[in-house]
């Protein structure tokens, strides 16, 4: 399990878990589940286009994610933005399908991009993934206080002179960075599980932001490490373990929180 080629997988998985735990905390707090789902799906088309053109998929993922940010921000100003977002996702997915249909390894390409292939991560992917993740974490550290205020008490944030629109855009860009880093590892469809499950569990367990953030990262790390180990041992796809593991983390968090409430009420 700790053979040299597996070390890349462990390293990349750890980076992805940390950044997903941090960004996911704000995704859940702000209720941006739909955007967190839409960006990775849109990025699928970018990766497909890059594969077809013979470019590094990371370039395609990054370009498509940023285009997705622009689209969501532009459409968000109008009413019924969820309809427009849903249609944009579908168009991008269909385009990705069309493009991958023109490449040699169609079915494998589709499966790998949608559900991830952490065990096939190479050394060359490690550095860009880490750089993207570091940028995303740095952005969140810088924006931590205004982001927290704007997510929890939007009115107070406005009174402090925080521009909600600009902050929204900044957060979407962070999500785009996370997407670009995480899609090759856990796949377009499952980045989303990691962004929602562990942070939602953490927020069910504690109301204090800093503690919830730390807990969110810890749960994401546990989920991802367990998934890599189980995927290696059982030879089943990692996406299965990441998806169900995130769900289990949330269920455990809710149960634990429920038990805590009951105990406190009894006292």
């Amino acid at each position, binding site marked *: 399990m700790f053979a040299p080629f597996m070390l890349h997988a462990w390293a990349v998985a750890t980076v992805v878990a940390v950044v997903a735990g941090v960004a996911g905390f704000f995704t859940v707090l702000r209720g941006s*589940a739909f955007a967190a789902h839409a960006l990775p799906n849109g990025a699928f088309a970018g990766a497909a286009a890059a594969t077809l053109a013979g470019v590094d998929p990371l370039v395609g993922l990054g370009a498509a994610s940023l285009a997705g940010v622009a689209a969501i921000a532009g459409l968000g100003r109008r009413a019924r933005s969820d309809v427009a977002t849903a249609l944009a996702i579908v168009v991008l997915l*269909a385009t990705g399908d069309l493009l991958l249909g023109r490449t040699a390894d169609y079915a494998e390409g*589709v499966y790998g991009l949608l559900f991830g292939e952490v065990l096939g991560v190479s050394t060359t992917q490690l550095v860009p993934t880490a750089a993207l993740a570091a940028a995303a974490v740095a952005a969140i550290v810088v924006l931590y206080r205004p982001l927290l205020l704007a997510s929890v008490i939007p009115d107070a944030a406005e009174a402090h002179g925080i521009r909600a629109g600009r902050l929204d855009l900044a957060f979407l860009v962070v999500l785009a960075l996370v997407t670009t880093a995480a899609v090759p590892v856990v796949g377009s469809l499952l980045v*989303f599980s990691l962004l929602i499950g562990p942070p939602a569990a953490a927020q069910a367990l504690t109301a204090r932001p800093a503690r919830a953030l730390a807990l969110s990262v810890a749960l994401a790390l546990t989920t991802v490490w367990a998934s890599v180990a189980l995927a290696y041992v059982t030879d089943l796809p990692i996406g*299965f373990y990441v998806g169900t*593991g995130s769900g289990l983390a949330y269920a455990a968090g809710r149960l634990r929180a429920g038990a805590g409430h009951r105990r406190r009420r009894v006292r």
Partner: protein
Amino acid sequence: MPGGPLVARVLGGALRPLVEPGFLSSGPVRTALVVGTVVAAVSAAVGVVTVVRGQGFAGHALADIGSAGGAAAVLVGAPTVWGFVAFNVAAAGVIDLVGVDRRRGRDVATGIVLGVALGLAALFLYEDAVSTTATGTAVVILFGSLFAVPTTTVPLVAALGAASALALAALWRPLLLTSVNPDLAAARGVPVRAVGGAFLAILAVAVSLSAVTIGAILSTALLIGPAATALRCTARPARAVALAAVTGVAATWVGVLVAYDSADWLGGRGLPVSFCVVAAVVAAYAVSSVAPAARRRRPPAPPGGG
């Protein structure tokens, strides 16, 4: 019937530049058109209520969740429709149970269920690839192929489509009232919660049917696209349903036709039919933004966005 072939020949001659020869006499094309028509009409009707209720994300999530069901059905050798329906109805139940009244809570509940289902989809699709010799199962379930729908599925699709259309008609008035003004509905004695649950079940079946047609993760297009197009042109629900159904069916037919013809334009390797249908649906949506009604009655953007 001597009249039949003559009409067909005249029509065929007139449409020659548009319709490649053999289009209407091809078995897969006929099945595709029948299934596509039924599904597009039902999805569009259900989609209008979905958009009015603001449940676009739930509809999209159900669509993705269905992919796990479709993959599981392939694994046990059952028709994929049943897999889609079973998983979507179960997921709709869980979302309804877990979901709380706050909108953010509902999104997170939907997201958690979606995440788990996608994990299962990864497993089942992998097992499908390992256990069956047929390649591309994942692609057919996720992205669909209207030309590959087996003829045996047609009666099933028709029955499920009719059932959801009837249920929608039966619930029409309480559904609209609870969507537009839940407080007033509750005051009039409408069981708001039960109506919402019943609608989620109808939505689950409609999404499953779309998943058979254009694939699990693309099925949102048939659900939301025509409905959103129609609601841009008219504010009256009944008229919107009719317009959405017409738009959806037309888009499906255009998509099937283009996909069939493209094999000739591109030298044997045509465009995927699902891509063509999605493109037609979105084109209709784009055109509707310049519709006279939309320009005349563009509502002022509500504070804080939709």
